């Protein structure tokens, strides 16, 4: 290559051109466009995961970003793409683990209903199933102490959240009375 360059110059004006000194123009546009598309796709998938995850709480959705609106550099775009991908992966792992726990909780409820005496005092709530609401499945003795002594166990299913009582409290009850969960508002089973 160097010889070739030397030949092209007139005698006496040989100029050495090293490849390193040649100006290199890198067209970032295609890379930037591709990164923006990847960011859009990841954001859409993260949004879909967010909607699917509802009402489960305690999952970290944040993908931090500092500064105001600007044209991001290639490095910043890459970093954002990587952060989004990492967050999406973490969210999917967390949701997978939750789904497994919820399946176990559902199986436990079935076992509790079949053999309450084997699961004394065990309680499963809607939160364990990844659901909203206050319903719970609680293995309790029938007739209190007598049931405990006699081995009469049953699953008591709370029907939902206690009704709002307003500032005045429930009629006939003290103002600050709070009904124990699953007692006032529950229907026994069987």
């Amino acid at each position, binding site marked *: 290559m160097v010889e070739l360059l030397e030949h092209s110059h007139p005698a006496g004006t040989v100029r050495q051109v090293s490849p390193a000194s040649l100006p290199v123009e890198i067209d970032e*546009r295609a890379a*930037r466009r591709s990164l*923006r598309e990847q*960011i*859009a796709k990841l*954001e*859409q998938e993260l*949004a*879909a995961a*967010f*909607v699917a995850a*509802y009402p489960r709480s305690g999952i970290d*959705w*944040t*993908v*931090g*970003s*500092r*500064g*105001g*609106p*600007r*044209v*991001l550099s290639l490095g*910043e775009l890459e970093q*954002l793409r990587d952060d*989004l991908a990492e967050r999406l992966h973490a969210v999917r792992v967390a949701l997978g683990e939750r789904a497994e726990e919820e399946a176990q909780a559902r199986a436990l409820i079935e076992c509790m209903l079949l053999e309450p005496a084997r699961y004394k005092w065990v309680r499963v709530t809607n939160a364990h199933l990844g659901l909203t609401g206050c319903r719970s499945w609680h293995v309790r003795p029938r007739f209190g102490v007598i049931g405990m002594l006699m081995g009469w166990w049953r699953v008591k299913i709370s029907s939902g959240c206690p009704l709002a009582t307003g500032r005045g409290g429930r009629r006939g009850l003290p103002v600050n009375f709070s009904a124990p969960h699953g007692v006032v508002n529950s229907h026994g089973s069987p």
Partner: protein
Amino acid sequence: MGEADALELRSGSVAADVCEEFPELTLVFAEVAVGSGRTPEEVKLQLRLLSDRFRGAQAIAMRQDAVPQAYRVFYRQVGLDPDAERTPVEATAVKRLLDGAFRSRNLLDDALTIALVETGVPIWAFDADAVDGDLSIRLAAPGERLGRQEQAPPLPSGRMVVADERSPLAVLFGELAPGHGVTDRTRRMVLFSLQVAGVPAIHVEEALWACATVLDAGELRTS
């Protein structure tokens, strides 16, 4: 003929460096010869009906809807975190859930809320007397300030802004320059909106039209 019927939508220019990065980013604006003021009962009723139609489930699922999602994606692409600085429609949805309703504030804010909730497209307003020439989107130059007042906050170089022919007037999706917003004395406003990739133009037009219609109704009521 009302302002909404005579609404003349114009497209602002987008600087070449911004356009190269976001070819679909468009600034749409229109001038309306109305001011803000107290909200008439009809608009308050409209807000109440809108509140009744808007539920928590919608707020959760919103980020999967095409238009709100397009703004979320754009936020990411310009370096904003839509979970920290919520997109306008998500911020309004959260406020609706916290307040229990879309609270009426004044005619302009109520008009902006109605247009935003109906279409998902955010709109902002300047006092037309404080705007010189056409609006554009560009990057802030070194040493520029947000607005023309002496105490105007400095802008970092490269910040994406909405500007008129003299100075930046608003950070993109952010605060308006002090002294350029709508006040009680405003008689003409410039409404503007930002269309990003994934948002159909008809949504932006619909948003501006809806906003102008509400402002019109308020103006006719109070005049």
